[in-house]
């Protein structure tokens, strides 16, 4: 049935003037050979422009006839006079065709939207969230979206899960956009989500990785702040929580983790851009991630993406003491950066947070490392200060492409070094 409608639609597409308003499709149940012969005579009748969808062949099969509206009356009377029973299968062909067209158009738009989001542009929260849904729709066997909680202002926090099945598989966590003004971080994550979805099944390394492990990617980790950078202050960094007793809002979400909380490199002043908050995990955005990671229990890597400075760092920030896994993390970091540089020559520095950039307490990758997630890394993407947070959109795809090489290297190492 559908076949004929599709055929008709194609026919329509080619001969686009023809409209089928009021046309009907009649289903005839021939009861005798005589009926068949009468119907076969009808077939030869050219005047009535009858369009047989199923030809009169035997009494065992129905006969479907598309009858132009202008001839409907005549045909029905003819069938009645010959006692040939029939029913109206399609009451108005044009309406059916239009519905079909609309459905196909909707699907085309849906398809278009996930394939053709402009990855070389910055998008607002709404657009990113819609696109995440379209990615899930397009790759339902690989990508799903999980709601891990609400923000201070009641925005949903979503993480994309890339999984080929299994249960409680070891997993890799990647978060972007925890600092609102670092737009290229979330833009890179969008591109990366698409890259993972499209490369699965084609890139052997990624495919083998996803056959063993899951990847969780949080594209906007601070939705309240991100929205605020679009509506009010492009340079906003923190969350948007209200600080009791202060006219200044927000907590630095990367000083709010339970790792040396309140120590050097974080401010106790609510007005500061590095305010650590009243206590560790006071920020619901941080708490949601903490809860998720802890209840999942199988994360082997935790990677946080920031901008700017062109750095790849590992713990600690809260102290300049080396972590026990310093040598391995440093080695992985250096090879990852070599891979990154191979694309456009972009120079990155590698080292622990405390020595490379500054001592900073309450950071996410310090927390993740201290709860046993060995492969904890933080990226600071392009550039080194010329544009800073206002990185031109034209650099999004180059940044994401080169960063992917580093991410892939780290993930491959995690895959090959189970613990």
């Amino acid at each position, binding site marked *: 049935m559908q076949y004929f409608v599709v055929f008709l639609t194609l026919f329509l597409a080619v001969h686009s003037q023809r409209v089928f308003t009021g046309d009907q499709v009649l289903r005839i149940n021939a009861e005798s050979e005589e009926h068949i012969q009468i119907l076969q005579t009808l077939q030869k009748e050219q005047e009535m422009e009858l369009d047989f969808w199923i030809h009169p062949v035997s009494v065992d099969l129905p006969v479907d006839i598309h009858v132009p509206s202008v001839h409907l009356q005549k045909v029905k009377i003819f069938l009645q006079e010959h006692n040939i029973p029939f029913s109206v299968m399609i009451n108005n062909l044009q309406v059916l065709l239009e519905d079909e067209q609309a459905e196909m158009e909707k699907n085309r738009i849906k398809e278009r939207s996930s394939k053709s989001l402009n990855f070389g542009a910055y998008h607002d929260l709404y657009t990113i969230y819609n696109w995440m849904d379209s990615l899930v729709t397009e790759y339902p066997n690989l990508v799903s979206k999980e709601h891990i909680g609400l923000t201070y202002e009641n925005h949903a926090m979503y993480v994309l899960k890339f999984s080929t099945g299994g249960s409680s598989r070891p997993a890799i966590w990647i978060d972007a956009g925890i600092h609102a003004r670092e737009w290229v971080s979330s833009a890179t994550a969008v591109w990366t989500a698409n890259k993972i979805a499209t490369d699965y099944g084609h890139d052997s390394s990624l495919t083998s990785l996803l056959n063993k492990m899951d990847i969780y990617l949080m594209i906007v980790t601070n939705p309240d702040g991100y929205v605020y950078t679009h509506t009010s202050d492009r340079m906003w960094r923190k969350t948007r929580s209200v600080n009791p007793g202060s006219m200044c809002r927000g907590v630095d979400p990367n000083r709010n983790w339970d790792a040396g909380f309140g120590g050097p490199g974080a401010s106790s002043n609510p007005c*500061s*851009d590095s305010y650590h908050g009243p206590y560790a995990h006071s920020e619901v955005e941080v708490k949601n991630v903490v809860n998720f990671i802890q209840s999942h229990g199988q994360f082997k890597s935790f990677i946080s993406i920031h901008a700017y*400075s062109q750095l790849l760092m590992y713990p600690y920030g809260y102290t300049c003491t080396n972590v026990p896994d310093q040598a391995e993390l440093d080695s992985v970091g250096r090879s990852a950066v070599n891979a990154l540089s191979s694309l456009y020559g972009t120079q990155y520095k590698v080292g622990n947070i405390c*020595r*490379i950039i500054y001592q900073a307490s309450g950071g996410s990758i310090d927390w993740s490392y201290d709860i046993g997630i060995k492969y904890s890394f933080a990226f600071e993407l392009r550039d*080194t200060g010329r544009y*800073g947070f*206002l990185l*031109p959109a034209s650099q999004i795809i180059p940044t994401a492409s080169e960063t992917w090489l580093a991410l892939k290297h780290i993930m491959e190492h995690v895959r090959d070094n189970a613990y």
Partner: protein
Amino acid sequence: AHTVLYITGLQFVLKLTPHTPAASPSVPGQEDIQAAMPVEELDPSHYPATRAAKVAEHFINTRYGSPFAWFGSSGVKKAGLEVRAKLHFTLKEMTRNQDMGLCSAEVLFHRADERKPPQVQCTCSGAFQVNTSAEEEDLYQRLRNATSLLSGSDIPNSVGHIDPEMAPFWHLGGVASSFIMLRESNESTLLNMAHIDNFTQMETKDAQLMFQYDILLHDMVSQEILKWKLLLSWSPDGGVKVLEAEWDPKCRSCERAHLTVTTGIAAEQEMKGDNNNV
């Protein structure tokens, strides 16, 4: 001519003279390096080297920056520090991606008194020879002959876009900011110009063009955004000069938010706002 220099590959050679302050530094030759006293070798990718390099960058911009030449920084090769950092670096003019040759600089942080801005001395083998005089003269004449005063805003915009005609004023803002950033730098800061909120050309009677700039600086160490108002002058002959500079705190009652808890930042930052020539 004035240019904007971009520090790319930095090669620090440590040369420590703790007892005698360096006279005028020359481009160190082999004999200087061999005569150096043992000092604390710095990892070139660690922040002390990065921050010192940033200060050198600001210094170079104050001396050689212009609307058509603006310096950034990258790539430290080797570093050493005691009281002063000595750096060797390759320099690049950013707007043209032009190699400027080898430079050496000495950055002295006054640890005892952080209100004193760092002292920088710098020489380059090739001199800062970027031929921008034609463009500078062209811009200067266009502005002097214009019937209305020029202004602009939101540079770069949220998505990093800059109109080509605004680019020289972006560079000019960056160069002028370097005066402030040089003065405000210490071992616990890493300053960049983040955004030009707006700029307005002012009336002048003399040969200098004058502009009022509202600028945002970003300190990577404290992560603070610092609002500064600058009054600056420029002409091809006179170069870039900052006439007045005023820090505009986030909010009157929360001035102290500007402080960080990292070592070294002192309370004097909230008292900035003087009108001295830089």
